[in-house]
């Protein structure tokens, strides 16, 4: 079954997300506290599969990093 976990440093896909985050303009980024709060919620969510949000098809760490994003789940978890 899929792992309910975020991508970790050292995994090949983590580099893809890290590159995306590095290229994201600072003004679009959410603050660190917000990102951590979002990711903590995602880690408890059944829609998290191997670092991917099955609701929106995004890498969770990529979606959570943007200021103007919101949880795509109909329950609006964040």
């Amino acid at each position, binding site marked *: *079954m*899929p792992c309910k976990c975020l991508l970790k440093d050292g995994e090949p*896909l983590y580099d*893809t997300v890290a590159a*995306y985050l590095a290229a994201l303009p600072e003004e679009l980024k959410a603050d660190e506290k917000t990102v951590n709060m979002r990711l903590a919620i995602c880690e408890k969510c059944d829609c998290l*599969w*191997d670092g*991917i949000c*099955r*609701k*929106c*098809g*995004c*890498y969770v760490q*990529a*979606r959570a990093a*943007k200021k103007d994003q919101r*949880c*795509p*789940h*109909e*329950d609006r978890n964040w």
Partner: protein
Amino acid sequence: MRMTIDCTNRKSVIAPELYGSFAEHLGRCIYEGLFVGEDSNIPNKNGMRTDVVEALKELKLPVLRWPGGCFADEYHWRDGIGPKEKRPPMINTHWGGVSDDNSFGTHEFLELCEQLGCEPYITGNLGSGTVEEMSKWIEYMTAEGDSEMTRLRKQNGREAPWKIKYFGVGNENWGCGGNMTAEFYAHQYRRYATYCRNYPGNKLYKVACGPYDDLYSWTETIIPLVKDRCDAISLHCYTWCKSRAREVSAEQYDGLMKRARIIGKFIDGHLDIMNRYDPEHKVKLIVDEWGTWYHKELGSVDGFLYQQSTMADALVAAISFDIFNARCDRISMANIAQTANVLQAAVLTEGERMVKTPTFYAFKLYTGHMGSTLLGSFAENENENISHTASVNENGEVFLTISNTSLDKSYELDATVVGHETKAVNAEIITADRLAYNDFEKPEQVNIKPFDGVKAVHGGLRITLPPCSVVSVKF
């Protein structure tokens, strides 16, 4: 610029199936896009999203292809029937390596088709499945009488057999469906298709795996071997672009439109070969995968093929429809890739939200051609910026669609209409900046609006066609 529509020159019927779609177990097309399960908070009927079903019904969707695509040749149908908690999960190795719990299977797909009022088009697994597996799937779905398969179907809640017309015997078997040579596939096709039986009350329309683009050698090899045992062969033609949909440069836009138009030449090349072996035109062509293929949206998962759809996509759709319509004597179906959230999708979803894309509106604008008879017509400058189709429906109403891909040039069209009066004219338009798109925050940036740029004049029409537009005229 001049054009002529000859309403006395009636050609073939434009099969409604030319406006079909394709739904693969890929990314969020099936799961989330079409199917959310009975327990979801998202409004659904038997697990199917009601918003998406209603949207697709608006398009009068005639046929839906499933389960793939590349997925079809590793799909084992028995994993997708019976109690859901007992269905084994599988890894979707083609598309992102994600787990598929098989909660959407044969019964669910056919339920979806019933809700949509469309024909199912099922692709069987020739690449990694057995002859017996394919044969028994057809028996499970379509046989009456008493057998292990019909008992199993009834045990799973379906008493009466379904009607299944369209059945593909493998998919892209020159590539993801087994990397076969054309000759090897043709022999495999003959073997598998032999056991795709017509049970009483059901007649299969068998589709052999055809080529992609200009792979004429595939057509040349398989047609003599399969022509007496199939109803159609398939063709896959994508409109590729090395950019994200919303970042297409003006130069890339020109390339996109050229690529969309060249598909007509590929089709003609394959039809020429088919005509040599099948002068009576018994075997049709089905373009069962077409559409734009951009780089994925930033932040979205590799292998999910999630892209936005822009005004450029509406134009690619219009050009493609015109190509298919013009060859409706030989093309019996076309299926855009794909229905929701994947490639050139009609709808995008996120949680409970859904947005209709410019591609959706292009489909909607063209519904007037479905089941109508193609008319002889001609436009100057065709294949450069202008593309069109004219048809007449059973009530005698003429329907014209015409598109202009130029980014800066508008055209004054003087259309001579032969054999039909043009007194009452009703026109609509899709037009926007080439990169305009609909998203969840602004869902109606690109849609269909009334258009006053068409005037009835003596003997015809005068049409002012703006840049970057698709227009329909009914008269």
